[in-house]
């Protein structure tokens, strides 16, 4: 039996395909990373290693635009992720700890709605909506749209975590005369923290990355990082864009590593 098991689990070629899969995933990004260090103005010729495009990002003609765009993106992602995480945590508590009730399935459906509706449809609908009610489009409209579509992304890890927590914990607390609010803040919330953190991170990244909806609801002169990048790459791939993408890749790696370390620390406890 034991002799056969390694044989059964492995399919030849699967490892090769996995390596190929990772190669496909990384090849374009690595190429861009390499070319971001290219000294040449042209993207086609290699003229030696240099950091000039990184300097260009911070000091060049477009640097102000990208600085503002980056600030907008981070502020929006911060607020949208925080607001949607709070709402998603409450909603998960109601749906998973609120017993059986009439609107339970409907609530879950509503929360997953932004995931099921194709992004372009949400974008068009939101544009029509803001246009019809006559709201001036700007940072606030982007923020509102982001909060809404971030809710399901925050909800998923939070509810997954909550499903793994036995209800006996809060019940025990309440048996010891803790109020419901205390049972929530002192017992359930700390237990859910890893889920809440990964929910927040997911929402944060999704907001930071969003282009389609933002592009439809943004106002005059208001740019987020993705729309600013789109504005630049539309006219061709420039070396400073490659430098920006390499830095974004760096930020993403750091964020993912952090969230992974947090969840691992938690699992080891």
């Amino acid at each position, binding site marked *: 039996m034991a002799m056969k098991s390694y044989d059964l689990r492995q399919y030849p070629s699967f490892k090769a395909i996995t390596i190929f899969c990772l190669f496909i995933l990384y090849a374009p990004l690595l190429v861009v990373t390499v070319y971001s260090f290219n000294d040449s103005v042209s993207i086609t010729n290699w003229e030696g290693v240099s950091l000039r495009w990184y300097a260009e990002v911070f000091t060049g003609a477009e640097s102000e635009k990208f600085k503002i765009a980056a600030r907008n993106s981070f502020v929006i992602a911060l607020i949208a992720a925080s607001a949607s995480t709070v709402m998603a945590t409450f909603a998960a508590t109601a749906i998973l*700890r609120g017993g059986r009730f009439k609107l339970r399935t409907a609530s879950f459906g509503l929360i997953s709605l932004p995931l099921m509706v194709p992004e*372009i449809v949400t974008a068009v609908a939101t544009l029509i909506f803001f246009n019809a009610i006559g709201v001036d489009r700007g940072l606030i409209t982007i923020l509102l749209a982001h909060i809404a579509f971030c809710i399901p992304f925050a909800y998923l890890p939070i509810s997954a975590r909550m499903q793994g927590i036995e209800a006996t914990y809060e019940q025990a607390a309440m048996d010891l005369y803790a109020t419901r609010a205390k049972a929530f803040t002192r017992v359930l919330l700390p237990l859910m923290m890893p889920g809440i953190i990964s929910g927040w991170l997911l929402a944060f990244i999704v907001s930071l990355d969003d282009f389609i909806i933002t592009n439809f609801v943004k106002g005059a002169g208001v740019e987020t990082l993705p729309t600013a990048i789109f504005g630049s790459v539309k006219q061709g791939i420039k070396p400073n864009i490659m430098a920006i993408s390499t830095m974004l890749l760096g930020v993403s790696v750091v964020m993912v590593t952090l969230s992974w370390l947090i969840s691992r620390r938690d699992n080891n406890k």
Partner: protein
Amino acid sequence: MAGGASTGGSSQSETFAPARYWLLLPSWVTLTILVLAPVSMMMGYSFLTKEFRGGVIWEFSLSAYDQFFFDRGLFGDDPPVLQWTYISIFWRSIWQAGVATLMSLVIGFPTAYFIATRPEKERAIWVFLVTIPYWVNLLIRTVSMKFLLRDQGPLNDLLVGSGLLSEPLTIVNTNFAVQLGLFYSYLPFMVLPIYAAAERYNFALSEAAADLYATRWTVLRRILLPSVKPGIVAGCILVFVPSLGSFLAPDLLGGAKNFMIGSLIEEQFKGNAGNWPFGAAASMILLTLVMVILLISARQQAKGGK
């Protein structure tokens, strides 16, 4: 997430039952105002009359749907026949998204399975490796892809330089480039759900089958694939649905000359056409299509799952 509408565990805790409506209120309000109301409003717009050069006139009209489905000739006075222009745009989108999904499945399934069979400690690192590229902005990934595939790009330099090809391969601005772009954009969405399903797979089943003289590939086909099917279905949906509405890949990699649904809709609001009711109608048709796909898969899942 998309298919199986499992709302929670089987055991129903009631600890916070008295506060449940208060807890749900913020999400309800936000999503009703910012998603449900806009989508309903868009549905309303699809039944309005278009204003020349953008905007709407508040008069009921079916002309947006009529334009979608019926062809009355270039001048609008031939007898109506079925309109193929937009149906073929939808068909092309479904085809492109379908091919991209298939490519993701062919690469994603072995990858997910391979990861699931690694020792437990290694798995997290593999999953980590698969997810990192996804966190890089979609735009940048698409542009990187284009850069790599250009006629004079690194890939062609490599192929020609190594003597494998005598002339650069034209990939950019073809349908294949769009498929490749979509595949690349959403590949991790295929790997992760299959991995989650494969990780729970009980290998005793494979062993039992092997004891009954099943070959490895029979085991794969008859036992393993059916067991991880929910993961495969979820993965396919997660790749297919966003691919269907995508407009970055067709725009940047396809040369904007073969419309997909996303570009068609975008053009109605941001480009030349300026026909809002038609854009709303096309969005409604896309939304309906996606909902039907989700419903069918949810039903299948429910059938197969129990």
